[in-house]
């Protein structure tokens, strides 16, 4: 009998043995699930850096990385997947180099372009799960709408200063989506980026690693339709490291993305849904 392509080689047994031993992980079945699964990480920055390293190390079969930016010196205090030598190199490419070195079993695809109305469906459709590690509201709404229309569960994370936030959205096609939580975008003058507000490296790092834990729970079917409950987890590194988990609403009746046909794939791809116009251009300010 021919072995299935998702059976583990002896070398893989050795590599992943320690995590297969943990009861919560789910043994060989879960490891084979990870091997046969694929994750798309959008943004190889402060969140994406550790999320990518831990997901690659854990043995996800295929990883896609979307980032149009190049590595900048100002990133290196927190974006620990990159190197001083990769400054001015595209971040997705730079991240791929490290992943290949850490775990050559992982197949890595890079998308060295911004995620846009035109390419989001083409990119997202090939993956089982998406990690939204992006850095602005317009991109977050685009990722949400694309994942909802393509029935993809996604892990959404964000961070600034000493804080981080994360949640699992559109879980198994019934969990709430980003628009259920945030039907209207925030006024542009209340949106702050890491380059404007600053960020402590390990604080956003912890949020990124927590995203990897959630992705593993989704891909190994630790979360089920019975035990999954909508949540938002909030981390703060100061004054004392603290994690709070809030119980969140389910899908909202009439939500424009997940409970209506108001926004279609065609509306997005044609550019009729103008995310940047709707969210306004960022005007770095108070918050």
């Amino acid at each position: 009998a021919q072995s299935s392509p998702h059976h583990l080689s002896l070398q893989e047994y050795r590599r992943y043995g320690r995590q297969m031993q943990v009861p919560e992980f789910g043994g060989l079945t879960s490891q084979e699930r990870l091997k046969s699964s694929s994750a798309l990480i959008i943004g190889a920055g402060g969140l994406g850096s550790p999320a990518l390293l831990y997901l690659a190390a854990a043995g996800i079969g295929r990883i896609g990385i979307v980032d149009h930016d190049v590595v900048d010196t100002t990133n290196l205090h927190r974006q620990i997947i990159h190197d001083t030598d990769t400054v001015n190199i595209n971040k997705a490419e730079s991240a791929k180099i490290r992943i290949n070195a850490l775990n050559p079993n992982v197949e890595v695809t890079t998308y060295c372009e911004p995620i846009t109305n035109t390419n989001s469906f083409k990119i997202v459709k090939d993956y089982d799960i998406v990690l939204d590690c992006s850095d602005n509201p317009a991109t977050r709404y685009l990722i949400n709408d694309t994942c909802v229309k393509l029935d993809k569960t996604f892990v959404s994370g964000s961070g600034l200063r000493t804080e981080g936030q994360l949640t699992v959205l559109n879980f198994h096609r019934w969990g709430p989506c980003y628009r259920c939580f945030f039907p209207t975008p925030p006024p542009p003058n209340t949106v702050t980026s890491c380059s404007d507000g600053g960020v402590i490296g390990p604080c956003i790092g912890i949020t990124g690693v927590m995203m990897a834990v959630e992705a593993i729970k989704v891909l190994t079917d630790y979360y089920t339709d019975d035990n999954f409950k909508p949540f938002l987890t909030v981390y703060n590194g100061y004054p004392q490291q603290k994690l709070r988990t809030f119980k969140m609403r389910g899908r909202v009746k009439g939500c424009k993305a997940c409970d209506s046909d108001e926004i279609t794939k065609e509306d997005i791809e044609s550019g009729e849904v103008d995310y940047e116009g709707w969210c306004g251009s960022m005007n770095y300010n108070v918050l």
Partner: protein
Amino acid sequence: MSTRVIVKAEFLGGLDSIFGGIKETKCTVEANDSTLPTIKDLIKHITDHLLVSPNDYCVFIQEDTVRPGILVLINDTDWELEGELDYELESGDVVTFTSTLHGG
């Protein structure tokens, strides 16, 4: 005579910056009629007493409710599940306002 309750308000996600850096505080909230005080009364109390500069009103309030991008949690539960503005406060309640972060 109107009813009073004492609740804890928390400001996370950088929201403390418009309240003079205060991350949590006790608020004594009074209803503006004979009914029990609600989240609506708490929000009025906050804008009346805690907001440092009137210029920041629009960072907290828009169209008579908290502005888009701020989540409200009552005792660690989304206010959507608790009646939003009309939730009747009980003494000891913890009401958390958190600005959503967008950095990555």
